């Protein structure tokens, strides 16, 4: 169980981690400045297992992988959004940051709500208001990458051709 941190529509990569902090690739260093301008209290108070909740087009903008890495480095369990921007979607899957697309959950979750997420089934429970939501299922090959914990781990064990088999 974790606390929900809510963000608005079109949360862009500059807002997740401004360009001037991308000089490092260290997840913990990046996590220190994650959301520093839109929600400065996040980096100080986030606890392992907390959940990021965003609106439409979460992660739009730059291709910087620093954005999902910074979120993963902050120990958040996953990102739930109404929809994801395409590069962020790929990057999150590739580095093993769990993401769930579920507009109903986004509409039903407020800042600070107690949230439980079953990553395997995509079930999201809001213990503050008692509601449950079901996230959209991910395509099979994306699940293969997610289950391996990211594309790098997948490639250690498999040939790239196995992705679509």
């Amino acid at each position, binding site marked *: 169980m974790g606390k929900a941190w809510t963000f608005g529509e079109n949360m862009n990569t500059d807002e997740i981690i401004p360009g001037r902090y991308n000089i490092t690739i260290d997840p913990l260093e990046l996590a220190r400045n994650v959301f520093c301008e839109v929600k400065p209290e996040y980096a100080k108070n986030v606890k392992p297992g907390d959940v990021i909740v965003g609106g439409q087009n979460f992660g739009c903008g730059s291709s910087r992988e620093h954005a999902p890495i910074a979120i993963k480095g902050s120990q958040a369990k996953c990102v739930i959004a109404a929809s994801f921007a395409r590069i962020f979607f790929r990057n999150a899957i590739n580095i093993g940051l769990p993401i769930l697309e579920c507009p109903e959950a986004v509409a039903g979750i407020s800042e600070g709500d107690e949230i439980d997420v079953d990553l395997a089934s995509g079930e999201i429970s809001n213990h503050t208001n008692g509601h449950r939501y079901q996230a959209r299922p991910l395509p099979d*090959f994306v699940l293969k990458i997610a289950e391996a914990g990211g594309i790098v781990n997948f490639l250690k064990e498999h040939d790239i051709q196995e992705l679509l088999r």
Partner: protein
Amino acid sequence: MGTLVEEIFSRKAGRIVKAGEILLLDVDYIMSHDNTTPLAIRAFREIGKPILDKNRVVIHLDHAYPAPNVLAAENHRRIFDFVKEQELPHLFQQGVCHQVMIEEGFVTPGSIVIGADSHSNTYGALGAFGTGLGSTEIGVAWVTGKCWFKVPETIRVELHGRTQAGVYAKDVMIYIAGLLGMDGGTYRSVEFGGEYIDQLPLHERIIFPNMSTEIGAKCGLIAADQVTLDYLDNETPAKGKGPFEQIRPANPRYERLLELDVSTLAPQVACHPDVDNVKPLEQVEGLEVQEVYIGTCTNARYEDLEIVANMLRGRKVNPFTRVIVTPASARIYKKALQNGLIEILMDAGCTVTGTGCGACIGRHGGILAPGERALTTMNRNFIGRMGSPLSEIYLASPATAAATALTGRITDPREYLMQNAE
């Protein structure tokens, strides 16, 4: 049989493919830069397998180059060491990656070029499939030579007519961004065509795929034609890689068709804080700015500098406005120098910097203070992108930037263009 992206992917897959299919395709070139290469190296080391084809790897130092601080210098050092260790043939410090990719002939019709930079969509201007990815996938592509793609649905943007004097491709694209919105093209291929596009020179065509990124698109495409082939022949070393097929859509099924007559369009401005906060220039005319920045992969080509120089010739920019010009590439800079443009810009009071991404990402070369407002030729105006989160960015054409540089307020370029004509 299909949209332009389906036609390109079908040739690569060796069979007819349709939107919605997931493919694993060979990529022709794999681009990354000083900001994104270090993470790609980390992924590469973790995978622990060799680079499949070193000739396909292209690395640029442009985002924070020359280094504005010690961390950036260390970053460059790491990349130099890696390129030496792996004996990679393509390392560039000649300007903004996307411009150099095109100038050096890496982008050809029907090819697939992936880049660890969101504006890799730019390559679609030459009928190539270009798309931005994260660093880890770049490391994966170094090792496998491949990348997975979901064949996207297509939005066709059909542009009719010709723009009026003082209105440029940038104004048209900003207007389209306003219509479609910053998530209007997400996961889609946005195909630009019609008689307006057909008669545009390549440097103007580039704006459309380049800014397709700002509406979330996977790619922005313009079918290759004689203009494309002539450009490749005359301006790049790509000739030897041809002959190139002029791939066109064939009985395409579009998800959406947007038709637009550009002949009545006035200069446009994308206002703080979103690219789709678009207004006709007259609605923001007179708004004071503290910086004018002419640069980036969107609008710092020779022809852009020429427009600016023609407007600034014999005039002085506002003394209380920083006016910064960053040519997109060394080749552009050299040509501008040889033809006297740089002298005109300097005489007018502009600060001309070395090539690269410069002020666009808020690293160096024009950072904004709290409360400052910039009018720029960039493609992106996210909050805090150029420096302080309390600053504002307005996007416009090079002509609007030049007119604004003279007054220190957002100014319609048509006034000056008419004066010049008289």
